[in-house]
């Protein structure tokens, strides 16, 4: 990047990328090496604090999904879903939510997964793999791919708009369900386009699997994701890992601790035993592949064959293909939901406010987004805690970077910085989502 600067003296070099492009939000990377060994590494966030957990106190519970949506413009649905489920638990109505409402929530989430995954894959991440500075420059050589991806992204946005009026900060969701359920006619209109995009995305994922070279960076991760019994995770499920974690939603807040780290001064989350863990597409896929939509399962099989690697994938660069497989899943699932859709008997369940406590996490495109609320008797919020996916992935991103930087230490500074940025983007770090990253003081190696 143009303002990457370096300082060199006897065997020491500092690479400092001031503003990281193509991530939503603001982050920076600070890397200090001595004789090829990483001495100090910081993935910094300078997203200003906005104090959501503070000003949510005293607001009515009905207002919460509209407010938390504003944490992130790219994944507002995730913040609405987390808030709704957690508050339904606090109000004691969680079990009463109709299956038809749950299905509509999955449809809404499909829309967000599609638009967010496609945005990230094609606009933000593919340029790294193909060696372009941005999708804007990529258009000249790969115009058709960009155009096809924009069409699929639009289909995702249209699904969110169907249920919420618009794709950024949709207005249709309420605690208890939806303000209004769409008519079967409005819904069916989308079907031909979803069908087209489903077929096209299957083809695109395979094309990319053949076209893209994935850097080798294998690590032994603890993959954490929701694991419902009989569906690919979105809104429901216990929280499990490949290393034996298996907890109820309410317990996750005690198992995953957010804490401050001196070197980066950002909130990081680790499991109680001190282990780093990773959330997001790769975790979901590694733990839940058996529950993918039929079309996505077919694509996954072909992809595994093409890249010569079967699951579990331990290379974070393969998040890129995991997003592709999940996009196919979301398109396939939304096709099925719309095909079988009839107007539900009610769009929302009635709620009587009460004092309570409720916690729930759902699968944002970037991974588990976990909320916990305590309410007063009149339904106003007494306290709120929100654990976004990016803060959970922070320690893992830094550990990955340490390994990568050591592997490619011989590269010139600008190329090394580029590779590190590329790696950070594997995690699609939606830095606005990191509701409470702290201001960082810079440390420069002398």
């Amino acid at each position, binding site marked *: *990047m*143009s*303002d990457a600067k370096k300082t060199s003296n006897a065997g020491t070099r500092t690479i400092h990328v001031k*503003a990281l*492009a*193509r*991530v939503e*939000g*603001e982050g920076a990377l600070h890397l200090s090496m001595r004789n090829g060994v990483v001495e100090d590494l910081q993935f910094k966030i300078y997203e*200003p*604090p*906005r*104090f*959501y*957990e*503070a*000003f949510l*106190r005293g607001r*009515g519970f009905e*207002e919460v999904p*509209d407010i938390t949506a*504003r*944490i*992130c*413009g*790219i994944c507002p649905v995730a913040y609405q879903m987390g808030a709704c489920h957690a508050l339904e638990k606090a109000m004691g109505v969680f079990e009463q939510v109709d299956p038809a409402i749950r299905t509509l929530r999955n449809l809404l989430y499909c829309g967000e997964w599609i638009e967010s995954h496609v*945005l990230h894959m094609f*606009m*933000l991440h593919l*340029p790294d793999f193909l060696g372009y*500075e*941005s*999708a*804007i*420059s990529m*258009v000249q050589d790969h115009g058709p791919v*960009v*155009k096809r991806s*924009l*069409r699929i*992204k*639009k289909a995702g*946005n249209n699904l969110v708009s169907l249920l919420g*009026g*618009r794709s*950024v*900060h949709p*207005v249709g969701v*309420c605690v208890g369900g*939806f*303000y*209004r359920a769409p008519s079967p006619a409005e819904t069916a209109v989308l079907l031909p386009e979803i069908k087209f995009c489903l077929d096209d995305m299957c083809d695109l994922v395979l094309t990319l699997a053949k076209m893209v070279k994935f850097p080798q960076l294998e690590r032994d991760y603890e993959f954490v994701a929701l694991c419902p019994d009989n569906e690919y995770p979105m809104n429901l499920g216990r929280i499990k890992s490949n290393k034996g974690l298996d907890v109820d939603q309410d317990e996750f807040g005690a198992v995953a601790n957010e804490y*401050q780290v001196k070197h980066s*001064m950002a*909130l990081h989350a680790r499991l109680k035993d001190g282990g780093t863990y990773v959330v997001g597409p790769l975790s979901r896929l590694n733990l839940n592949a058996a529950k993918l939509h039929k079309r996505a399962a077919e694509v996954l099989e072909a992809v595994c064959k093409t890249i010569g690697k079967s699951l579990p994938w331990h290379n974070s660069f393969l998040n890129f293909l995991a997003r592709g497989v999940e996009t196919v899943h979301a398109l396939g699932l939304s096709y099925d939901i719309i095909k079988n859709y009839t107007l539900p008997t009610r769009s929302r369940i009635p709620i009587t406010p009460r004092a309570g406590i409720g916690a729930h996490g759902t699968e944002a495109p970037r991974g588990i987004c976990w909320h916990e609320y305590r309410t007063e008797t009149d339904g106003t919020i007494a306290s709120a805690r929100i654990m976004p996916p990016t803060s959970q992935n922070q320690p893992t991103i830094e550990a990955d970077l340490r390994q990568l930087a050591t592997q490619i230490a011989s590269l010139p500074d600008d190329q090394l910085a580029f590779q590190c940025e590329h790696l950070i983007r594997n995690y699609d770090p*939606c830095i*606005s989502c990191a509701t*409470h990253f*702290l*201001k960082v003081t810079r440390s420069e190696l002398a």
Partner: protein
Amino acid sequence: MAAAKPKVAVYKFSSCDGCQLQLLNLEDELLDLLGAVEIAYFLEARRRELPPPYDIGLVEGSVSTPEEEERILEVRRNCKYLVAIGACATSGGIQALRNWANVDEYVKCVYAKPEYISTLETATPIAAHVFVDFELRGCPVNQYQLLELISAMLTGRKPNIPTHSVCIECKRRGLHCVLVSQGKPCLGPITQAGCGALCPGCERACYGCFGPMEQPNITSLGTWFTDRLGHSPQDMKRMLRLFNGYLEPFKQASEYYERREKNQ
């Protein structure tokens, strides 16, 4: 040789990224737009940066840290036209709720080590710091209004952005009035149009995310809410203090209801 394309820069301050995302959500128009302008600085979308000056600067977000207070001055110097986009940039946004609170208490509520936090007492709109050539409302902005604004600036005409209320859009869509027919506390009568009456379209009350319309009669609507619908002054304060709460006359009205709340 063709004339150089106008250079556009997109900046982010304290915000959710949703308004700049609306540019990328112009899927059908995006490639044409890229043909008409040079994206010179847009960190969310591209790595390359062209040096200033820029013809058009679009600013998302409010000013809430000492660093942002400095940076907005530089941004203004670098841009011929500066446009504030979205509720954060035009009103301070949801994070402006701190402006009525004790920021130290907020910091302690969220962070274990408050001493590391660097933040301002207030979150304020861009126009509180520098001259702004145009303000585009909305949380988020409507992507077609954004396109209209850019088109107007490229051709040197006044952008066609209505300042009337959401009610006009609601009637045009033929929706039933959720306030009159269902008694829902709809802010549509005092809120600026631009969303396309989304909330009434979803059978819910407008919550004012495009901010106050030109010359709203908040007193009249407030009296309707309190006297006929039975809402408390506290409810009124909460409704007005949301994504555009720090923008006049929502701000003044919310402070009036706060005084009434305290006198109860």
